[in-house]
Protein backbone atom coordinates (compact mmCIF):
# COMPACT_ATOMS: atom_id res chain seq x y z
CA UNK A 1 0.00 0.00 0.00
CA UNK A 2 1.77 3.23 -1.10
CA UNK A 3 0.35 6.65 -0.56
CA UNK A 4 1.91 9.88 -1.76
CA UNK A 5 3.52 11.43 1.28
CA UNK A 6 2.69 15.05 2.05
CA UNK A 7 -0.24 14.94 -0.34
CA UNK A 8 -1.93 17.87 1.31
CA UNK A 9 1.20 19.99 0.93
CA UNK A 10 1.42 19.42 -2.82
CA UNK A 11 2.23 22.60 -4.80
CA UNK A 12 -1.07 22.37 -6.65
CA UNK A 13 -2.79 22.71 -3.31
CA UNK A 14 -4.83 25.89 -3.46
CA UNK A 15 -7.11 26.70 -0.64
CA UNK A 16 -10.31 28.13 -1.96
CA UNK A 17 -11.36 31.62 -1.09
CA UNK A 18 -8.33 33.25 0.41
CA UNK A 19 -5.69 32.88 -2.32
CA UNK A 20 -6.90 35.90 -4.28
CA UNK A 21 -7.12 38.03 -1.18
CA UNK A 22 -3.59 37.10 -0.21
CA UNK A 23 -2.27 38.03 -3.66
CA UNK A 24 -3.87 41.46 -3.66
CA UNK A 25 -2.86 42.29 -0.14
CA UNK A 26 0.74 41.16 -0.48
CA UNK A 27 1.17 43.41 -3.51
CA UNK A 28 0.72 46.53 -1.44
CA UNK A 29 4.06 48.20 -0.90
CA UNK A 30 3.07 51.01 1.43
CA UNK A 31 5.19 50.52 4.51
CA UNK A 32 2.73 52.11 6.87
CA UNK A 33 0.04 49.75 5.66
CA UNK A 34 2.18 46.65 5.90
CA UNK A 35 1.40 45.90 9.51
CA UNK A 36 -2.31 46.34 9.12
CA UNK A 37 -2.20 44.39 5.86
CA UNK A 38 -0.56 41.49 7.65
CA UNK A 39 -3.18 41.71 10.37
CA UNK A 40 -5.93 41.82 7.74
CA UNK A 41 -4.39 38.90 5.89
CA UNK A 42 -4.38 36.94 9.10
CA UNK A 43 -8.01 37.84 9.72
CA UNK A 44 -8.97 36.87 6.16
CA UNK A 45 -7.11 33.60 6.47
CA UNK A 46 -8.85 32.84 9.75
CA UNK A 47 -12.24 33.79 8.34
CA UNK A 48 -11.68 31.60 5.29
CA UNK A 49 -10.63 28.71 7.52
CA UNK A 50 -13.68 29.10 9.71
CA UNK A 51 -15.90 29.30 6.65
CA UNK A 52 -14.40 26.18 5.13
CA UNK A 53 -15.42 23.74 7.84
CA UNK A 54 -19.13 23.95 7.27
CA UNK A 55 -21.99 21.62 7.95
CA UNK A 56 -24.73 21.54 5.35
CA UNK A 57 -28.00 22.90 6.60
CA UNK A 58 -30.40 21.21 6.84
CA UNK A 59 -28.47 17.97 7.17
CA UNK A 60 -29.80 15.35 4.77
CA UNK A 61 -28.80 11.73 4.60
CA UNK A 62 -28.03 10.22 1.21
CA UNK A 63 -31.25 8.30 1.68
CA UNK A 64 -33.22 11.53 1.26
CA UNK A 65 -31.84 11.85 -2.25
CA UNK A 66 -32.59 8.23 -3.18
CA UNK A 67 -35.64 7.04 -5.08
CA UNK A 68 -38.59 5.25 -3.52
CA UNK A 69 -37.41 1.81 -4.64
CA UNK A 70 -33.97 2.22 -3.10
CA UNK A 71 -35.50 3.49 0.15
CA UNK A 72 -37.89 0.53 0.23
CA UNK A 73 -34.97 -1.86 -0.29
CA UNK A 74 -33.03 -0.34 2.59
CA UNK A 75 -36.05 -0.30 4.89
CA UNK A 76 -36.80 -4.03 4.45
CA UNK A 77 -34.34 -5.83 6.70
CA UNK A 78 -34.65 -9.03 4.75
CA UNK A 79 -34.55 -7.67 1.21
CA UNK A 80 -31.69 -5.27 2.05
CA UNK A 81 -28.72 -7.09 0.50
CA UNK A 82 -26.36 -5.35 2.93
CA UNK A 83 -27.82 -7.56 5.65
CA UNK A 84 -26.00 -10.49 4.03
CA UNK A 85 -22.74 -8.83 5.06
CA UNK A 86 -24.10 -8.28 8.55
CA UNK A 87 -24.96 -11.99 8.65
CA UNK A 88 -21.43 -12.80 7.50
CA UNK A 89 -20.10 -10.58 10.26
CA UNK A 90 -22.25 -12.42 12.82
CA UNK A 91 -20.65 -15.72 11.81
CA UNK A 92 -17.14 -14.27 12.01
CA UNK A 93 -17.91 -12.64 15.36
CA UNK A 94 -18.23 -16.07 16.94
CA UNK A 95 -15.37 -17.75 15.10
CA UNK A 96 -12.08 -18.08 17.01
CA UNK A 97 -9.18 -16.58 15.07
CA UNK A 98 -5.41 -16.21 15.30
CA UNK A 99 -2.82 -17.65 17.66
CA UNK A 100 -4.90 -16.80 20.73
CA UNK A 101 -7.85 -18.73 19.23
CA UNK A 102 -10.18 -16.14 20.68
CA UNK A 103 -13.34 -14.92 19.01
CA UNK A 104 -14.72 -11.38 19.09
CA UNK A 105 -17.60 -12.71 21.20
CA UNK A 106 -15.09 -14.14 23.69
CA UNK A 107 -14.20 -10.62 24.87
CA UNK A 108 -17.09 -8.45 23.76
CA UNK A 109 -20.00 -10.84 24.25
CA UNK A 110 -22.83 -10.81 21.78
CA UNK A 111 -22.52 -7.98 19.26
CA UNK A 112 -25.86 -6.25 19.92
CA UNK A 113 -25.08 -5.65 23.58
CA UNK A 114 -21.37 -4.96 23.41
CA UNK A 115 -21.21 -2.84 20.29
CA UNK A 116 -24.22 -0.58 20.74
CA UNK A 117 -23.39 3.02 19.85
CA UNK A 118 -19.70 2.28 19.23
CA UNK A 119 -19.66 3.09 15.51
CA UNK A 120 -21.13 6.55 16.14
CA UNK A 121 -17.89 7.62 17.87
CA UNK A 122 -15.49 6.56 15.09
CA UNK A 123 -13.02 7.48 13.68
CA UNK A 124 -11.12 8.23 16.87
CA UNK A 125 -7.53 8.28 18.08
CA UNK A 126 -6.41 4.93 19.39
CA UNK A 127 -4.23 5.57 22.46
CA UNK A 128 -2.06 2.48 21.91
CA UNK A 129 -1.40 3.05 18.24
CA UNK A 130 -1.31 6.85 18.73
CA UNK A 131 -3.07 7.46 15.44
CA UNK A 132 -6.54 8.05 14.10
CA UNK A 133 -8.33 4.81 13.28
CA UNK A 134 -11.70 4.12 11.75
CA UNK A 135 -13.89 1.14 12.54
CA UNK A 136 -12.07 -1.08 10.05
CA UNK A 137 -8.75 -0.03 11.53
CA UNK A 138 -9.97 -0.72 15.05
CA UNK A 139 -11.15 -4.21 14.12
CA UNK A 140 -7.74 -4.97 12.63
CA UNK A 141 -5.96 -3.57 15.71
CA UNK A 142 -8.11 -5.85 17.86
CA UNK A 143 -7.14 -8.82 15.70
CA UNK A 144 -3.44 -8.02 16.07
CA UNK A 145 -3.49 -7.29 19.80
CA UNK A 146 -5.94 -9.76 21.22
CA UNK A 147 -6.35 -12.54 18.68
CA UNK A 148 -2.81 -12.67 17.35
CA UNK A 149 -4.26 -12.78 13.88
CA UNK A 150 -3.20 -11.14 10.63
CA UNK A 151 -5.17 -8.00 9.80
CA UNK A 152 -8.02 -8.53 7.39
CA UNK A 153 -7.57 -7.07 3.96
CA UNK A 154 -9.32 -3.77 3.46
CA UNK A 155 -12.46 -4.14 1.34
CA UNK A 156 -12.55 -7.92 1.84
CA UNK A 157 -15.97 -9.43 2.52
CA UNK A 158 -14.71 -10.47 5.97
CA UNK A 159 -13.70 -6.97 7.07
CA UNK A 160 -16.78 -5.44 5.46
CA UNK A 161 -18.91 -8.03 7.26
CA UNK A 162 -17.46 -7.33 10.70
CA UNK A 163 -17.60 -3.56 10.13
CA UNK A 164 -21.19 -3.78 8.95
CA UNK A 165 -22.11 -5.90 11.97
CA UNK A 166 -20.56 -3.46 14.43
CA UNK A 167 -21.97 -0.37 12.71
CA UNK A 168 -25.39 -2.02 12.42
CA UNK A 169 -25.60 -2.13 16.22
CA UNK A 170 -25.57 1.68 16.22
CA UNK A 171 -28.39 2.01 13.71
CA UNK A 172 -30.55 4.98 14.65
CA UNK A 173 -27.91 6.50 16.92
CA UNK A 174 -26.70 9.95 15.84
CA UNK A 175 -23.19 10.30 14.45
CA UNK A 176 -21.24 11.85 17.32
CA UNK A 177 -17.68 12.64 16.29
CA UNK A 178 -16.05 14.68 19.04
CA UNK A 179 -13.19 17.01 18.23
CA UNK A 180 -10.41 17.17 20.78
CA UNK A 181 -6.76 18.27 20.83
CA UNK A 182 -5.66 14.74 19.88
CA UNK A 183 -7.58 14.54 16.64
CA UNK A 184 -7.48 18.23 15.76
CA UNK A 185 -4.58 17.84 13.28
CA UNK A 186 -6.32 14.92 11.57
CA UNK A 187 -9.51 16.88 11.38
CA UNK A 188 -7.73 19.80 9.75
CA UNK A 189 -6.02 17.54 7.23
CA UNK A 190 -9.37 15.95 6.44
CA UNK A 191 -11.01 19.34 6.09
CA UNK A 192 -8.23 20.50 3.76
CA UNK A 193 -8.51 17.33 1.67
CA UNK A 194 -12.24 17.96 1.35
CA UNK A 195 -11.59 21.46 -0.02
CA UNK A 196 -8.62 20.48 -2.18
CA UNK A 197 -9.13 20.92 -5.91
CA UNK A 198 -7.97 17.70 -7.54
CA UNK A 199 -7.75 15.85 -10.82
CA UNK A 200 -8.34 16.84 -14.41
CA UNK A 201 -11.76 18.20 -13.47
CA UNK A 202 -10.09 20.42 -10.87
CA UNK A 203 -12.91 19.87 -8.41
CA UNK A 204 -12.96 19.55 -4.65
CA UNK A 205 -15.48 17.52 -2.66
CA UNK A 206 -17.09 20.80 -1.63
CA UNK A 207 -17.94 21.74 -5.22
CA UNK A 208 -20.41 18.90 -5.51
CA UNK A 209 -21.42 18.04 -1.97
CA UNK A 210 -21.57 21.51 -0.36
CA UNK A 211 -22.55 23.76 -3.24
CA UNK A 212 -24.54 21.49 -5.52
CA UNK A 213 -26.16 18.84 -3.36
CA UNK A 214 -29.62 18.06 -4.63
CA UNK A 215 -28.51 18.93 -8.17
CA UNK A 216 -28.02 16.46 -10.99
CA UNK A 217 -24.85 14.78 -12.16
CA UNK A 218 -26.12 13.04 -15.30
CA UNK A 219 -28.92 10.82 -13.98
CA UNK A 220 -27.65 10.87 -10.40
CA UNK A 221 -28.76 13.25 -7.69
CA UNK A 222 -25.78 14.72 -5.88
CA UNK A 223 -25.97 14.00 -2.16
CA UNK A 224 -24.46 15.93 0.70
CA UNK A 225 -21.77 13.28 0.92
CA UNK A 226 -22.29 11.82 4.37
CA UNK A 227 -20.82 8.55 5.59
CA UNK A 228 -23.61 7.66 8.02
CA UNK A 229 -24.83 4.55 6.15
CA UNK A 230 -21.50 2.80 5.51
CA UNK A 231 -20.63 0.07 4.73
CA UNK A 232 -23.34 0.34 2.09
CA UNK A 233 -24.71 -2.00 -0.50
CA UNK A 234 -24.34 -0.13 -3.74
CA UNK A 235 -26.41 -1.44 -6.64
CA UNK A 236 -23.76 -0.32 -9.12
CA UNK A 237 -21.14 -2.40 -7.32
CA UNK A 238 -23.50 -5.34 -6.86
CA UNK A 239 -21.78 -5.70 -3.51
CA UNK A 240 -21.20 -4.03 -0.18
CA UNK A 241 -18.40 -1.48 -0.01
CA UNK A 242 -16.65 0.77 2.44
CA UNK A 243 -16.61 4.54 2.61
CA UNK A 244 -13.07 4.43 1.22
CA UNK A 245 -14.30 2.61 -1.86
CA UNK A 246 -16.80 5.43 -2.28
CA UNK A 247 -13.97 7.98 -1.93
CA UNK A 248 -12.11 6.16 -4.69
CA UNK A 249 -15.21 6.23 -6.90
CA UNK A 250 -15.55 9.98 -6.36
CA UNK A 251 -11.84 10.60 -7.05
CA UNK A 252 -12.10 8.48 -10.18
CA UNK A 253 -15.10 10.59 -11.19
CA UNK A 254 -13.15 13.82 -11.00
CA UNK A 255 -10.22 12.05 -12.71
CA UNK A 256 -7.91 12.50 -9.76
CA UNK A 257 -5.18 10.18 -8.56
CA UNK A 258 -6.65 7.94 -5.91
CA UNK A 259 -5.28 6.59 -2.67
CA UNK A 260 -5.34 3.08 -1.29
CA UNK A 261 -8.35 2.10 0.83
CA UNK A 262 -7.40 2.44 4.48
CA UNK A 263 -4.76 5.12 3.83
CA UNK A 264 -4.34 7.74 6.59
CA UNK A 265 -5.51 10.56 4.29
CA UNK A 266 -8.83 8.77 3.81
CA UNK A 267 -9.23 8.18 7.56
CA UNK A 268 -8.63 11.92 8.15
CA UNK A 269 -11.28 12.71 5.56
CA UNK A 270 -13.60 10.23 7.28
CA UNK A 271 -13.20 12.19 10.53
CA UNK A 272 -14.05 15.45 8.79
CA UNK A 273 -17.12 13.83 7.24
CA UNK A 274 -18.15 12.37 10.59
CA UNK A 275 -17.93 15.84 12.16
CA UNK A 276 -19.87 17.24 9.22
CA UNK A 277 -22.58 14.57 9.59
CA UNK A 278 -22.84 14.89 13.38
CA UNK A 279 -26.45 14.33 14.37
CA UNK A 280 -27.49 12.26 11.38
CA UNK A 281 -28.70 8.79 12.37
CA UNK A 282 -26.52 5.83 11.41
CA UNK A 283 -28.25 3.64 8.80
CA UNK A 284 -25.83 0.76 8.31
CA UNK A 285 -26.28 -1.19 6.13
CA UNK A 286 -27.48 1.49 3.73
CA UNK A 287 -28.53 0.87 0.15
CA UNK A 288 -27.60 3.30 -2.60
CA UNK A 289 -27.69 3.26 -6.36
Amino acid at each position, binding site marked *: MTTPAGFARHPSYVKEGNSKARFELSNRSYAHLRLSAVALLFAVACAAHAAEAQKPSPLKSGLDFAGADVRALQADD*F*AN*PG*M*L*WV*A*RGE*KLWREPAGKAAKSCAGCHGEAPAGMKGVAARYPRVDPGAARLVNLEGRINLCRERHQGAAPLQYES*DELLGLTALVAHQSRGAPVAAALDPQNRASFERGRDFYHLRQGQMNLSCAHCHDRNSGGKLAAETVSQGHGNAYPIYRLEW*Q*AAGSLHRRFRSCLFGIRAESLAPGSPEFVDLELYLAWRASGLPIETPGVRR
Partner: protein
Amino acid sequence: MVARVQVPQEAKRGEAIEIRIAIQHPMETGFRFDLMGRAIPKNVINSLVARYNGAEVFRAELGSGVAANPSLQFYTVAEASGTIEFSWVDDAGVSGTERAAITVI
Protein backbone atom coordinates in the same frame (compact mmCIF):
# COMPACT_ATOMS: atom_id res chain seq x y z
CA MET B 1 -21.40 -18.49 1.16
CA VAL B 2 -23.83 -16.74 3.47
CA ALA B 3 -27.57 -17.08 3.04
CA ARG B 4 -30.59 -15.90 4.95
CA VAL B 5 -33.96 -17.63 4.99
CA GLN B 6 -37.15 -16.04 6.24
CA VAL B 7 -40.26 -18.01 7.14
CA PRO B 8 -43.05 -17.10 9.54
CA GLN B 9 -42.25 -18.58 12.96
CA GLU B 10 -45.83 -19.67 13.40
CA ALA B 11 -48.59 -20.34 10.91
CA LYS B 12 -52.09 -21.82 10.93
CA ARG B 13 -52.62 -25.10 9.15
CA GLY B 14 -53.75 -24.50 5.57
CA GLU B 15 -52.51 -20.92 5.56
CA ALA B 16 -50.44 -19.60 2.63
CA ILE B 17 -47.02 -18.63 3.92
CA GLU B 18 -44.33 -16.50 2.34
CA ILE B 19 -40.84 -18.00 2.17
CA ARG B 20 -37.86 -15.81 1.25
CA ILE B 21 -34.20 -16.52 0.66
CA ALA B 22 -31.22 -14.25 -0.03
CA ILE B 23 -27.83 -15.68 -0.94
CA GLN B 24 -24.51 -13.87 -1.04
CA HIS B 25 -23.11 -14.76 -4.44
CA PRO B 26 -21.35 -12.74 -7.17
CA MET B 27 -23.47 -14.33 -9.97
CA GLU B 28 -20.58 -13.77 -12.36
CA THR B 29 -22.06 -13.48 -15.86
CA GLY B 30 -19.10 -14.70 -17.89
CA PHE B 31 -19.20 -11.51 -19.94
CA ARG B 32 -16.79 -9.54 -17.78
CA PHE B 33 -13.02 -9.17 -17.91
CA ASP B 34 -10.57 -8.52 -15.12
CA LEU B 35 -8.02 -5.68 -15.04
CA MET B 36 -5.55 -7.80 -17.03
CA GLY B 37 -8.07 -8.41 -19.78
CA ARG B 38 -8.68 -12.05 -18.90
CA ALA B 39 -12.25 -13.28 -19.13
CA ILE B 40 -13.82 -13.97 -15.73
CA PRO B 41 -15.45 -17.40 -16.01
CA LYS B 42 -19.20 -17.61 -15.68
CA ASN B 43 -20.21 -18.62 -12.18
CA VAL B 44 -23.86 -18.40 -11.26
CA ILE B 45 -26.07 -20.39 -8.94
CA ASN B 46 -27.64 -22.61 -11.59
CA SER B 47 -30.19 -24.46 -9.51
CA LEU B 48 -31.90 -24.01 -6.21
CA VAL B 49 -34.36 -26.32 -4.48
CA ALA B 50 -36.56 -25.82 -1.43
CA ARG B 51 -37.82 -28.82 0.54
CA TYR B 52 -40.54 -28.68 3.18
CA ASN B 53 -40.05 -31.61 5.53
CA GLY B 54 -38.24 -33.41 2.73
CA ALA B 55 -40.80 -32.78 0.01
CA GLU B 56 -39.78 -30.48 -2.83
CA VAL B 57 -41.98 -27.37 -2.88
CA PHE B 58 -39.96 -24.99 -5.05
CA ARG B 59 -37.26 -25.25 -7.71
CA ALA B 60 -35.52 -22.51 -9.64
CA GLU B 61 -33.01 -22.50 -12.46
CA LEU B 62 -31.02 -19.28 -12.49
CA GLY B 63 -28.90 -17.84 -15.28
CA SER B 64 -26.53 -14.99 -15.97
CA GLY B 65 -29.42 -12.52 -16.18
CA VAL B 66 -29.96 -12.70 -12.42
CA ALA B 67 -28.22 -10.01 -10.39
CA ALA B 68 -25.60 -10.69 -7.74
CA ASN B 69 -26.80 -11.71 -4.29
CA PRO B 70 -30.09 -13.15 -5.59
CA SER B 71 -33.21 -12.84 -3.51
CA LEU B 72 -36.15 -15.16 -4.17
CA GLN B 73 -39.55 -15.56 -2.60
CA PHE B 74 -42.47 -17.91 -3.05
CA TYR B 75 -45.60 -19.06 -1.26
CA THR B 76 -46.53 -22.48 -0.01
CA VAL B 77 -49.24 -23.92 2.21
CA ALA B 78 -48.42 -24.57 5.86
CA GLU B 79 -49.11 -28.24 6.49
CA ALA B 80 -47.02 -29.45 9.40
CA SER B 81 -44.39 -28.21 11.79
CA GLY B 82 -40.84 -28.85 10.67
CA THR B 83 -38.12 -27.32 8.57
CA ILE B 84 -37.85 -25.68 5.21
CA GLU B 85 -34.47 -26.42 3.73
CA PHE B 86 -32.87 -24.77 0.74
CA SER B 87 -30.00 -26.22 -1.20
CA TRP B 88 -28.26 -24.80 -4.24
CA VAL B 89 -25.21 -25.29 -6.40
CA ASP B 90 -23.20 -22.91 -8.58
CA ASP B 91 -21.18 -23.40 -11.78
CA ALA B 92 -17.96 -23.81 -9.77
CA GLY B 93 -19.55 -26.81 -8.06
CA VAL B 94 -19.85 -25.05 -4.71
CA SER B 95 -23.07 -25.96 -2.98
CA GLY B 96 -24.80 -24.52 0.02
CA THR B 97 -27.72 -25.20 2.31
CA GLU B 98 -29.70 -23.12 4.72
CA ARG B 99 -32.76 -24.04 6.75
CA ALA B 100 -35.43 -22.45 8.89
CA ALA B 101 -37.92 -23.94 11.33
CA ILE B 102 -41.67 -23.40 11.25
CA THR B 103 -44.35 -24.25 13.80
CA VAL B 104 -47.82 -25.00 12.45
CA ILE B 105 -50.71 -24.69 14.88
